[in-house]
């Protein structure tokens, strides 16, 4: 038991380190690489961002009605190799959610059908609305809490934007506030219900090169791995679930590991 706790702590520290390094890389403009999308949800309107947000690019290209080959290629390659590993180890918005979930309040689980909301968000707000209503302010970017946090608020607070605050600004700030409350109550709630990038990567989770492996001969069906899972999966029942963010919190128990074979 002691070794499991020790390994859990080591893994948690390693994951935080990985997320922090990703935050520094994505969030500091070492190079101007905004012609390409990054691997995670990080708004390109943030004054400090280095890459374009992949969802922002998909929204913009839907508006322009052209196919974003490079973005689809990059997301497809990342998904094929890692699945949702990016959600657990790279995404800065995931890091924020991990930190918010540390607040000790009663946590709630999400009914299974609601997990499909993110696919509706992807199809509706990322592709359909910008494609069919290019002038309407109802694409995903207009509601994205990541964009509000990384761009709209900093621009308002620190860059002294002179534009009058309009109705949509209040809507966005309200969504951000709701996001904070929701994430405190539901661990990784945004990733599980609303993130369109998570929806894209989840399509690759079952077939990606790096994925979870189960050693049946080590499993005692004690349910400890299911209890540790932040996104309420039973890894023994559904080891490479589309919901799995590959945080590897279940691996210190010993019968699960990340592998490529």
């Amino acid at each position, binding site marked *: 038991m002691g070794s499991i706790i020790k390994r859990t702590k080591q893994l948690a520290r390693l994951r935080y380190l990985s997320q922090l390094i990703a935050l520094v890389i994505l969030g500091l403009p070492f190079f101007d690489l*905004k*012609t390409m999308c990054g691997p995670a949800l990080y708004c390109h309107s943030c004054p400090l961002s280095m890459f374009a947000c992949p969802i*922002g690019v998909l929204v913009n290209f839907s508006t*322009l009605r052209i196919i974003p080959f490079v973005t689809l290629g*990059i997301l497809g*390659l990342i998904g094929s190799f890692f699945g949702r590993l990016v959600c657990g180890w790279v995404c800065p918005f995931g890091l924020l959610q991990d930190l918010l979930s540390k607040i000790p309040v009663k946590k709630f689980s999400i009914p299974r059908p609601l997990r499909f909301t993110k696919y509706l968000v992807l199809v509706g707000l990322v592709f359909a609305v910008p494609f069919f209503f290019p002038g309407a302010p109802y694409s995903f970017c207009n509601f*994205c809490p990541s964009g509000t946090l990384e761009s709209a608020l900093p621009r308002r607070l620190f860059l002294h934007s002179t534009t009058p605050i309009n109705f949509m*600004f209040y809507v966005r700030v309200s969504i951000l506030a709701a996001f904070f409350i929701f994430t405190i109550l539901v661990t990784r709630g945004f990733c599980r219900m609303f993130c369109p990038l998570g929806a894209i990567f989840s399509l690759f989770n079952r077939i990606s*090169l790096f994925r979870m492996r189960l050693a049946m001969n080590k499993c005692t069906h004690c349910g400890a791995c299911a209890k540790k899972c932040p996104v309420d999966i039973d890894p023994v029942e559904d080891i490479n679930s589309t919901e799995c963010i590959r945080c590897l919190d279940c691996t210190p128990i010993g019968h699960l590991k990340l592998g490529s074979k």
Partner: protein
Amino acid sequence: MSIQSTDEYRSARPLLLIVLAIVFAGFVLYSTLFVKHEVSKSSKTELSVTELSLTHDVIRGKDGKLEAPAEKPSISPNKQKAGKSKSGGKACPT
């Protein structure tokens, strides 16, 4: 120690992965080598269009062609106007 996969895609998975990797790498290569978009009568690569689109310096005109907006871009009327892009359009203020 025997490591077992519990899903049903085990046999076809390596082939599928190779196909996917080729297809998606092909997307990037195809775009880099062949894709050109005409924006206000000048030819732009997809990467250039991506960069322009971030600041809404390219819009879809009424005739369906891509063009640089004359003044304020019309595709995101709710957005704020902090900062200016290279071509004078407002930075995407999401």
